[in-house]
């Protein structure tokens, strides 16, 4: 039932494919802007200065984005951040108020969806309930005056590809959610579109199915080398699937980058908080590399904020270390345990730092370590906030200006 890694790259037919197969971009792309690799390639999709307003509500502003051939880009953000609007503008289902969309070197800004080149999968599957899986997948093909035999063959191949061979005669209501979404995927790919758009494709599925299907979709995408833009509000999904993530907030792009770079180097507290879990402590910059949080002085070599400014320092729960309290390591602090939560694979502890009781922080430790420490009875412990893991954000500036690509 899985569409596992094929033994061979997709057979490319006699006809020239619309999408030239390229090497998977994942390893190559690093950083926010165009990488070395991309400077050599023209972007397949360019979003230039797109704005969208609904009445007086600004849904999107100053959107610039390049998507390179074969790339898997995730638009990630909380609901209402404009990610779906952006996807709909890319597809032509929505008209931008201003700006251009260039796909495959052609300005498609004002083309209706039917004249653009994309396949789309929706959260609701949007399968035609009165048509079987086969009829659904064949729907677009039948309109293209493709011979019947060819349609049948292609539909069978597509259904095989998504692991639904033999189930083609079922109606959507007879299929599970995951199966329906596979049919929707096969349908979206039926016309070999240059661009695959996925609008929260996994959100309606059960947790287990979701995890499984997301792996499969990512694999399929890489195998086909199809340029893909996916909208999601689930950061785990984005981190697992995307070559690059576009984090959006309130209609602007907060940060663009590989999953790794976004997780490691969030450019703002918003991004930091949205991707993964982040502890924040209020503080003030005392010296170029020192921040004071309450009574604690922290060494922060990454700091770029001028002296005297109010800041938030941020550190991930898994980046903090439990120390024995005797060795002299920088940024060491005593902490009281407020509550502990068993996660299965480890423990999450809510702590207050002595000298800064106002702001609790969260610490994650492995189950091994926790047992060794006797965590159930633990009332206080010493922790270290490793200096290189501390990020410093100026206060009152959760909104950073969009980064150049």
């Amino acid at each position: 039932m899985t569409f596992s890694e094929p033994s061979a790259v997709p057979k490319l037919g006699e006809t020239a494919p619309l999408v030239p197969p390229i090497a998977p971009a994942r390893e190559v792309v690093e950083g926010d802007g165009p990488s070395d690799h991309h400077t050599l390639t023209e972007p397949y999709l360019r979003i230039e200065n797109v704005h969208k307003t609904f009445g007086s509500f600004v849904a999107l502003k100053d959107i610039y984005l390049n998507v390179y051939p074969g790339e898997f880009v995730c638009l990630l953000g909380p609901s209402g951040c404009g990610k779906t609007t952006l996807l709909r503008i890319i597809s032509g289902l929505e008209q931008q108020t201003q700006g251009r969309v260039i796909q495959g070197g052609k300005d498609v800004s004002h083309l209706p969806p039917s004249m653009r080149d994309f396949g789309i999968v929706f959260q609701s599957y949007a399968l035609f309930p009165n048509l079987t899986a086969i009829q659904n997948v064949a729907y677009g093909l039948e309109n293209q005056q493709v011979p019947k035999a060819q349609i049948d063959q292609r539909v069978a191949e597509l259904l095989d590809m998504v692991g639904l061979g033999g189930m083609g005669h079922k109606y959507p209501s007879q299929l599970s959610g995951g199966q329906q979404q596979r049919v929707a995927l096969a349908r979206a790919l039926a016309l070999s579109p240059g661009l695959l758009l996925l609008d929260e494709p996994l959100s309606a599925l059960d947790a287990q199915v979701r995890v499984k299907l997301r792996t499969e979709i990512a694999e399929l995408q890489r195998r086909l080398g199809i340029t893909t833009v996916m909208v999601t509000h689930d950061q785990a999904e984005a981190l697992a699937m995307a070559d690059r993530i576009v984090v959006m907030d309130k209609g602007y792009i907060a940060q663009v980058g590989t999953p790794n770079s976004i997780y490691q180097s969030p450019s703002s507290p918003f991004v930091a908080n949205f991707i993964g879990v982040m502890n924040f402590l209020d503080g003030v910059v005392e010296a170029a590399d020192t921040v004071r949080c309450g009574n604690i002085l922290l060494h922060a070599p990454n700091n770029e904020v001028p002296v005297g400014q109010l800041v938030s320092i941020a550190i991930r729960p898994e980046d903090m270390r439990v120390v024995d309290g005797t060795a002299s390591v920088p940024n060491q602090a005593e902490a009281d345990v407020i509550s502990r939560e068993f996660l299965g694979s480890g423990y999450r502890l809510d702590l207050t730092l002595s000298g800064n009781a106002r702001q609790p922080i969260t610490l994650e430790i492995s189950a091994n370590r926790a047992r060794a420490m006797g965590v159930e009875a633990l009332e206080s412990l010493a922790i270290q906030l490793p200096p290189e893991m501390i990020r410093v954000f100026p206060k009152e500036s959760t909104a950073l200006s969009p980064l150049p690509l």
Partner: protein
Amino acid sequence: MTPTTPTAPRPLRVDRTKAIDTEAWIMRVLLTLGAIWLLVGVVLPLIPMIGRSFRDNNGEWVGLGNYLRYLTTPSLVQSFTNSLAVALTTTLLACGLGFVYAYALTRTAMPGKQIFRTLGLLSLYIPPLAVAIGLIFLFGNQGLVTTGLFGSLPELNINLYGFNGIVLGEFLYCFPQAVIILMTALNLTDARLYEAAEVLGASPIKTFFTVTLPSVKYGLISAIFVCFILAFTDFGVPKVVGGNFNVLATDIYKQVIGQQNFAMGATISVFLLVPSVLAFVIDRIVQRRQTALVSAKSVPLQPKPNPTLDRIMFAFCTLVVGFAIAVFATIILASLVRVWPYDLSLSLKNYDFGSVGGGGYRAYWNSIRMSLYTAIFGTIIVFTGAYLVEKGRGLKWLRSAKYFLSTIPLALPGLVLGLSYVFFFNNPIWRIPFTGMAIYNPFKGLYGTMALLVIVNIIHFYTVCFLTATTALKQIDPEFEAVSASMAVPFYKTFWRVTVPLSLPAILEIGIYFFVNAMVTISAIIFLYPANLPLAAVAIVNMDDAGDISAAAAMSTLIVATSLGVRLLYSWLTRGMRARSEAWLSR
């Protein structure tokens, strides 16, 4: 799980340049045509009618003269208050009893709910005219009740002709409408609210006032306005049992048909129109404030048995249904009696319409033809119209305008609509107001044709059908159109292959609604039907006018039987259809 190694299908070259914007143009053209249709069908005809109310019968401008004359003619003013009194009383009765009835059907464990549901709506299929004729044979001076079954029981004279008769008839007419609306509202409540109330220890009465009533508030308001408009504007019942109790609707008829005083007819029409439009507007405003009480997670209420309440409700429903059935049965009986009340032997003599006016079987077949056309064309127009409004792309202002125009007909009394059509379509030359210009009427050829009768019927019953279609379309995934567009499939193909099949139950429902209403309607067509196209419902009026009440009962029976027959045919057909589409309807 065996790892398979499927080969990815080879890419396909798709030519999307062919999809030049014809699709968008088709949509624009259709939307424009739809807007023109509504403009010509709904708005423009009202202009000459209202204009006519400022002119005398010879076409001379008299300003507010007609209104002054109206307001200073005591008999006409009396009609206005009479209409109000009838409408208010009927509304109170129909909504009050309708609420109890709907409550019994949805919130009690009373036995026989399915049967009551069907029979409670019986009078939907009996035109008000026929109801009134049934009332004559029940409560008239020689009626079954008045004479106590011709002397075998105590006599009971309710003084049918006048206020009492009209209210009784309008009640039967409005009751099923109120029940439908209230049943929908009562069905929509979330059972969890009741469980919460019960857990909190609220008494049944408190629960009724704090949970039940607020939850059906909007339904109740809608029912009140619908009943008010229906009773205020109905023509059939007061025509037959009104006696000398004049109401606005019969006044218009008398002015227009009796005296051919179109100016005064137009003036009274305005008086009929204004309260209806007001009621409509208020209802719209109130409904706009309605928020969805029912989320997708709502739990349907399973009423618990309550022997006392259930028994009382059963008795009540039996009584109400019994009354409707009695009226219906009396119509049939009266149509079969040779000479009521002197020769009670049964015969089919009254079904030989040869010696009475109205056109007899020709009228009956014409009505069937008209209803069929109305059902077919009306359904096509309404459904595509609703589709374009609901699912169309672009021209947003036009779509909003179309939505608004589509809801207006609900506020237009049939008599007003019919009279407007006379002024609009029978005028060889249109003057464009305030410009001094005039153009030939391009629709003149429609006047006096079957086509115009079909058009007026479609418009008259447009709103309910439109809202039915809209509701059905809203339930269809809005992304279907997006998916089709992504596959370069034009919207009309998806409309035909997906939207129509998915909406088939609603489409058929609309067709039936059109058919039944076209079959029984009288108000909109009474001014419009040409001499060579007699119609069954009009024939009832003519027979009643001429005093041939038994023949009128016979024609009523034919109409009701036809409507019911079509309804039954529909349920039978849809049962077959449901079985066929079970594969994809089952969830």
